């Protein structure tokens, strides 16, 4: 028996249509949830959703009030969720704490407005109809109509729960959130806070957040049907996407935030002076260590225009920077999985073809090579690959590439179209990979635009 199994399972609450549900009937070993009543998780199509006709201004008021209450957290809901996450989650306590501190800001009114303006081109279209006339003189009105959504959340960063609730609320539709086993608390805590500021409000009644084991046919086969829901919104997780595919068909669409990987490109300009190189190393480490490298945005490969000697100097600085605590990174809070450690040890023995800086102590490992390594760098491990010209490195970008961080920023203009052609989705200045994705395209589309149902009235 493992140590984990001897401890009593952690109690996880459900949130169903505005009400908190407690109870530990369903035991998953490390945690226990209330028994799942699948009938309670659907909203019949015979009725409109609770907030379908609530004005968007009122929705935003509730969200803003929710964010303000999250900031002060008078009933300790968020603190409790944070403590539970710190106990069982995978993120370092400090990283998690700072991530939680950022959550209320996401609910600020100017951000909500920016999101809707950017992703839908205006707030009006959520409450009413926008009129257009085509060249033949025929007129049409169209509207972003509230959808029925199932969200399969990712748990590697608590912001995923927050942005899913925000977008789900702004659609005015109905939202069933399927919790991941690596974040069983954040979404429920935010929804509970919403229920405290607006008890019985149509918006809180439009949300449920529950856990079932991803792929559980006894649940998914009956819930994931077009008679109940319009779209499945899935965050990453190859397993969850494959499972979701089984249910996608006419009337039930997949909106996928695909699993992604990110890279960096560093031009010769980084070696202009020792000070510049130090700044570049700091920016690069910031992008690598996002959420201790658990996010799709975290950089894993860095292509650098340098000689081997120059690259060695850079790697040494980079490894030192990776050991520093940052907003979204611990100093030494991650454990390198054994298989990865052995990959690294294998390469360490292959000098001079490969050079390795750092130990498996969580302070970061840098592997320098002429070709990218075969394994997936994680747990604060980065592969620095020497290239003659950054343009050559474009071939390493593909359909799985999300963010490409570039130094210096002037090189972006030349590289961005080539990267996009290869499949990459997002180009940033090195060091700024965190943030964004709200009010602008994310993972290749405008999320709110994809979530709503576009309906027309024509004549």
């Amino acid at each position: 028996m493992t140590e984990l199994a001897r401890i009593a399972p952690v109690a996880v609450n459900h949130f169903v249509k505005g009400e908190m549900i407690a109870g530990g009937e369903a035991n998953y070993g490390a945690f226990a949830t209330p028994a799942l009543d699948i009938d309670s998780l659907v909203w019949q199509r015979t009725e409109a959703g609770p907030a379908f006709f609530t004005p968007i201004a009122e929705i935003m008021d509730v969200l803003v009030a929710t964010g303000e209450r999250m900031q002060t957290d008078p009933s300790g809901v968020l603190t409790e969720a944070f403590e539970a996450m710190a106990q069982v989650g995978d993120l370092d306590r400090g990283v998690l704490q700072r991530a939680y501190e950022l959550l209320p800001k996401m609910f600020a009114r100017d951000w909500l407005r920016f999101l809707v303006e950017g992703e839908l081109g205006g707030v009006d279209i959520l409450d009413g109809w926008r009129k257009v006339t085509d060249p033949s003189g025929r007129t049409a009105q169209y509207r972003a109509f509230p959808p029925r959504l199932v969200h399969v959340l990712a748990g590697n960063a608590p912001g995923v729960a927050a942005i899913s609730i925000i977008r789900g609320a702004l659609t005015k539709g109905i939202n069933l959130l399927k919790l991941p086993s690596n974040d069983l608390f954040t979404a429920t805590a935010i929804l509970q806070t919403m229920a405290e500021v607006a008890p019985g409000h149509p918006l809180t009644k439009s949300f449920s957040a529950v856990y079932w084991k991803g792929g559980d046919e006894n649940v998914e086969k009956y819930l994931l049907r077009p008679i109940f829901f319009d779209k499945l919104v899935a965050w990453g997780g190859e397993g969850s996407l494959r499972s979701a595919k089984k249910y996608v068909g006419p009337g039930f669409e997949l909106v996928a935030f695909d699993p992604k990987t990110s890279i960096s490109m560093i031009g010769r300009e980084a070696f202009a002076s020792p000070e510049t190189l130090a700044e570049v190393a700091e920016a690069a480490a910031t992008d690598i260590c996002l959420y201790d490298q658990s996010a799709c945005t975290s950089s894993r490969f860095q292509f650098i225009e340098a000689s081997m000697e120059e690259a060695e100097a850079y790697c040494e600085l980079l490894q030192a920077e990776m050991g520093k605590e940052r907003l979204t990174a611990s100093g030494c809070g991650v454990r390198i999985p054994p298989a990865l450690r052995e990959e690294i040890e294998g390469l360490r023995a292959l000098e001079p073809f490969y050079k390795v800086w750092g130990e498996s102590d969580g302070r970061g490992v840098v592997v320098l090579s002429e070709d990218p390594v075969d394994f997936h760098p994680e747990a604060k491990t980065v592969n620095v690959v020497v290239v003659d010209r950054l343009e050559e490195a474009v071939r390493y970008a593909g359909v799985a590439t999300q963010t490409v961080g570039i130094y210096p920023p002037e090189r972006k203009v030349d590289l961005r179209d080539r990267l996009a052609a290869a499949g990459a989705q997002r180009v940033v200045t090195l060091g700024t990979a965190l943030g964004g994705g709200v009010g602008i395209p994310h993972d290749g589309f405008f999320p709110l635009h994809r979530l709503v149902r576009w309906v027309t009235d024509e004549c």
Partner: protein
Amino acid sequence: MTARETLLGMLHQPNCYTMPQSELVPLQLEAARELLAERRQQLPILDRRARETGVDRLEKLDDLIPLLFSHTTFKSYPNSFVQNGQWDRMTKWLGTLTTTSMDGVDLTQVEDIDDWVSRLWAAGHFVNTTSGTSGKVSFLNRTKGDADLLRRYLQRICWPEPILPENKHHIFFLGPRSGPYMLLIAANHVAEMYGRPDSRHYLSDDRLRLTDITRMAEMRLKMAEGRATPSEIAAAEENARNQGVEMAKRFSEMVDQIIRLRHEPMIITGGWLQMWQIMEAAKARGVPNGEFHPDTVIQSGGGLKGANLPADYREQIFEFFGHVRTQQGYGMSEMSCGFPMDKDGYYHQVPWIIPFVLDKEGVKPAGPREGVVEGRYAYVDLSNEARWNGLITGDRVTIDFRETRPETRLPGLVVHPNISRYANIGEEDKIGCAGTIDAYISGEIGA
């Protein structure tokens, strides 16, 4: 005589597989100390691990746990070495895991990975290989001494009432004739020692080529870099299917031969699914149960690889073959030899292999080394001369450390028959937004 020599000297002694822990453990601990001191001198990678984890003196067997490798170690070479034909680098890589010098390996005009392996064998590095679905091949080095031990181990099969090698059996091996796989190497030893020189039959007379396996890895890389064309992907998938058709034809021919010779002693080696198929084909041709010669040996093992057979498939298979002999064991390509199965279906410890039961994560012991313990299987094999052979596996096992128990007639440490696999990381419902190109390569290539 060193403790290690004493343990290896137990092979084929009457109590080889039934020693109580109280007698075995002190010898194993002493042998592990001797071996670790020697291997740390020879292998910087092990020495570094020992220093990093602070393992200096072995007070008890569990002190070896931080020094266990995962299977990754034996395929930690960069794929680019193979793809770019950098055999000198591959040789250097293998050298970092090998106790003996790699200097004598002739690398002139090596064309592909099969050539490279042949050159290694020619220089006395009898590597055996394994490969997973990724197409990346593991290389496990063996000295002549390691190879000889396997041969000696196979001089008696069907423990606890072994048969002797007398070149009187027909040999039916349901796989390729040769190749650097442990199963094929062992099958060749068995054929040579037990088989009639005039009657040795294989599913394919070709040598199993690693190039065919690495080609799949190359294809994956091409797809990841977006260089593959649709017809190349189709060709790769069709190639895999065609091989299957050819194999089915040859298999049917072998079944005919097996049925014809069923009244004479033979050794049939293959997977359980193949045994099932032989039974079905024979029954369809009207062969009744129990017609096979009593000295016939059924050698099988492994899982069903997704095949859907009834729960009592083994009983049905043996009912069909009748009163024949069987050789089954629990092992893996990385171990020097398997734990032989007794007549009650339990697998008995080989004295020079120290088994461990770890927690699910493979970090700590799942419990004290006593009674019955369930968890992840790991081991240190004290026999290997060419490498440090301590490994954490993906198998979930139950090990009974007691000297005796009601379930088995023979004493000694045993592994229960209920062996299964642990779910891979990522199958635990932990969802993150980070992913790799692997998610985008689907179909037979990506499976």
